[in-house]
């Protein structure tokens, strides 16, 4: 089985979000970039398929040379090969077109993406890859088993979960639950050394125009100070009369 894990390169969850160039660009100054958390759960599940079922695991990112340390980290965690499509990830659809090309070219049976990237929260790339490659798609995936060319997946739904079956080729949008938090791996020295000699290939982008374009960014208006109250009576009165939520 050939697995492609799509890795989005995103600011660490603790990053301060600021914008530059007249609020038209995200300010990367002092920001540390990491593997998108949803993709890290997917990558860790892929390592299980590699170790238990002999799968081959490749990782791919659409982005500039600055994303290579993130791909190296995925190699250090255990992926076999990395591909970087050398173009700016301007919008979800254009990223999906680049990745769909990689998927068709590489003949992958399973594509693991994340429910969403935590930067732009698009939640669109995996679904679009599925459409563009003719594969099935399961989103919000919190469990995945593969037997031959049949997948059994668990999907989180509002208020519960459901079990689904699908044939490969399959694309999933994964999230926490796919593996437990405690299963996540911190690359060890050996992994880091091995990652240095694993293939990381930069590929030229195919022609794909962006359908959307961010025009400007802004931060939420600063919040007024909290009203501290001394009694639950006062709180209930405020929630009823002022906030009008009860």
């Amino acid at each position, binding site marked *: 089985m050939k697995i492609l894990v799509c890795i989005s390169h995103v600011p660490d969850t603790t990053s301060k979000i600021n914008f530059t160039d007249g609020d038209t660009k995200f300010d990367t100054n002092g920001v540390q970039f990491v593997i998108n958390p949803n993709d890290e759960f997917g990558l860790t599940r892929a390592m299980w398929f590699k170790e238990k079922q002999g799968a081959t695991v490749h990782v791919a990112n659409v982005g500039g040379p600055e994303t290579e340390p993130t791909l190296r980290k995925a190699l250090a965690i255990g992926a076999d090969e990395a591909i970087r499509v050398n173009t700016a990830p301007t919008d979800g659809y254009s990223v*999906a077109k680049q990745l769909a090309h990689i998927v068709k070219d590489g003949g992958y049976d399973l594509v693991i993406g994340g429910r969403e990237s*935590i930067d732009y929260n698009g939640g669109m790339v995996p679904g679009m890859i599925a459409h563009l490659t003719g594969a099935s*798609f399961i989103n919000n995936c919190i469990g995945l088993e593969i037997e031959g060319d049949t997948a059994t997946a668990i999907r989180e739904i509002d208020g519960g*979960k459901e079990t689904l079956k699908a044939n490969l080729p399959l694309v999933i949008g994964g999230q926490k639950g796919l593996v*437990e*938090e405690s299963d996540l791996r911190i690359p060890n020295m050996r992994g880091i050394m091995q990652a240095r000699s694993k293939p990381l290939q930069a590929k030229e982008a195919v022609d794909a125009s962006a359908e959307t374009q961010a025009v400007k*960014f802004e*931060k939420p208006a600063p919040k007024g100070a909290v009203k501290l109250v001394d009694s639950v009576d006062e709180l209930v009165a405020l929630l009823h009369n002022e906030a009008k939520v009860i």
Partner: protein
Amino acid sequence: MSVLVYTESEQGTFKKAAQEVVSYAKGIADAMGTTVTAVAVNGEGPESLGQFGASKVLAVKNEALQKFNAQAYSDVIAAAAREEGAKVVVIASTANGKFVAPMVAAKLEAGYVPNVTGLPENTEPFQVKHSVFTNKAFATTEIKTDIKVVGLAKNAYGVHENATDAETVDFNPETNNGSVETVSVDKATDKVTIADAEIVVSGGRGLKGPENWGMVEDLAETLGAATACSKPVSDMGWRPHSEHVGQTGKPVASNLYIAIGISGAIQHLAGINASKTKVVINNDPEAPFFKAADYGIVGDAFEVVPQLTEKLKEFKAQNG
């Protein structure tokens, strides 16, 4: 040329998100000088969508679509958009909405923006504001394609009545369930879900252990609220994963969010910031959550929460 809106139902009953998304589509249609057409799959009483501004409903009745299937549902929405010649397609950014929307967009070769927080600032060029960086910022994005797919963030626009006579038309496009098949559904039907709840009561590590959640559940029940928790609480198995809210958990956009014994880490706040009113109960006045909250009580949760539940019961008894 109408604005097409997908209206989600659960076992035949339209969701509140469906009413909100029709209200919103009516706002866009007014700005563009056109009307709203809704598409519904096995929803009962489709003409009721007229109340929020739909003038036509494409009603799909199909046994094969009883269970949600993203492939088939996206076929329905894309076919409806083509049938109507719609230039704008609106889909609520619910879990299922976010599942189908990218597939619909790809089918229509349309640009798609999710988590939109208000009416377009312009319709020509078409620009919408949406939340990014998990509610830490907003972006205004231009959709450049002929057809635009807009995902509306929960509770961002509200439900607005706009009485319109809705004509219901049977609609039965060809659909393909693909290879994905639902084997079983495991869902508590007697509990309010975090996604649908108007009020969410959430507990953190400050509650010390799973045995102390009874008072959280009592409070939630009194308010008709859903229960939620911080990430460590679900990681430690005190509460199910499905209750984990925040940046890596479920998003919360309720009217009222009550946080008990939660410190207010940036990753937690990101996921709940879209809630309208936030209340914090914490015994540490320095807890960062107080900076993000509207109301706070500095105190021991083990004393405050039962008192609050009592008070609310009294309040409910008096106010019906």
